[in-house]
């Protein structure tokens, strides 16, 4: 028999390859873990349709479980309900900020921006709200680029989704 709790704990060690401070649990992409005998069924949900990290994440989950002695693993992707940044854990948001990436604001607060409106984003370095958008698209699908007008640092923002 496999202990589901044990699997959830192991999954905390599997990191997002593009934002390596976040585990797949912090990201909120693991939807369910089911076990039957020695078989483990894991359902994950993609962050973005074209996120190249998803294939890597599936493989990393498999490898980590093999490393811990679990071989009978099935990983499925589930599109609906669609992943949202609201599923990211508070712990995950703290880790992001410490890593220098501004965490996503709660979805109800902003997500449906009108044209030319800017989301208020706090600088992860000096905590100033005096920041401006450089580009709505950044180094990965999930990020936009901002600049702090006080400490003058440019930084990534994990955008609301």
């Amino acid at each position, binding site marked *: 028999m496999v202990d589901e709790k044990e699997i959830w704990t192991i999954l905390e060690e599997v990191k997002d390859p593009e934002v390596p401070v976040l585990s797949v649990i912090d990201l909120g992409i693991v939807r369910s873990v089911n076990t039957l005998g020695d078989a483990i069924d894991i359902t994950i949900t*993609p962050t*973005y*349709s*074209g*996120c*190249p990290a998803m294939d890597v994440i599936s493989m990393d989950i498999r490898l980590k479980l093999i490393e811990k002695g679990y071989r009978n693993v099935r990983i499925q992707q*589930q*599109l*609906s*309900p*669609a*992943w*949202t940044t609201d599923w990211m854990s508070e712990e995950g948001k703290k880790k992001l900020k410490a890593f220098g990436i501004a965490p996503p604001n709660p979805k109800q607060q902003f*997500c*449906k*921006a*009108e*044209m*030319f409106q800017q989301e208020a984003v706090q600088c992860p370095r000096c905590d100033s709200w005096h920041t401006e958008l*450089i*580009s*709505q*698209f*950044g*180094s990965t*699908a999930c990020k936009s*680029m901002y600049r702090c007008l006080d400490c003058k640092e440019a930084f990534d923002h994990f*955008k609301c*989704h």
Partner: protein
Amino acid sequence: MNTKLFLYTLHLADNALILAQRNAEWTGHGPVLEQDIAITNISLDLLGQARNFYQYAASLYNGFSDEEKEVVDRYVPRLWKEYNRELQEDDLAFLRDEHQYLNLLITELPKGDWAQSVLRQYFFSAFQVELYQQVQQSELVQLSAIAEKAIKEVQYHLRWSGEWVIRLGDGTEESHSRMVNALGELWMYTGEMFEAAPYELVDVASLKEQWLAKVEKVLREASLEHSKQTWMQNGGKRGRHTEHLGYLLAEMQYLQRAYPNATW
């Protein structure tokens, strides 16, 4: 119904793939670094949507009866038939011939200048938002799930491209004249979005009014006016394409044609 669903899924996939390929031509050639990254990200989102649709189309086909396979036979890649294995997403993306693609003509037009690319993206994203909302609310379970995922991405594309249309249309003399030119080139390709093909499972004609209202508002803000001409190009949804698609496919499919089943 199943064969219609297969063709409709291919149509949605082809729209996303062909525009992804066009936008990707900007990679390394964007006007400034940030916008190069932006349009490449949009391309990546569209490619992801295309993959979801192609995977579903392939799984539908693999579950078909012989009669159903016969009905859609002319849309299935000839080369794949020699492979003796199940149909996969890449076969649909890389091995079909021009007339087997069901994408809208507007997605295959050359990227043109920045004005043409952002205006095309705007017209298409404004349409995609309306379309995906309908698909999401439909009873087509898997298509609904793909649309639910994709619609959040498309909202970002719409906002980005709409801002560019206004910025250029209402910008300098040169940017304005380029937008006027882009509008002249593209307008006649917008009608096809709302002309239903026999396999279409969403009433696209009903989306036109909202699309037009949204687009006209942005064009007004951009000091632009679309032509009053009502004659529109069509054919893409039925596999009749402009000469441009052939060149695009020649480049996109090169590797799988030269080295069948290559992986890396």
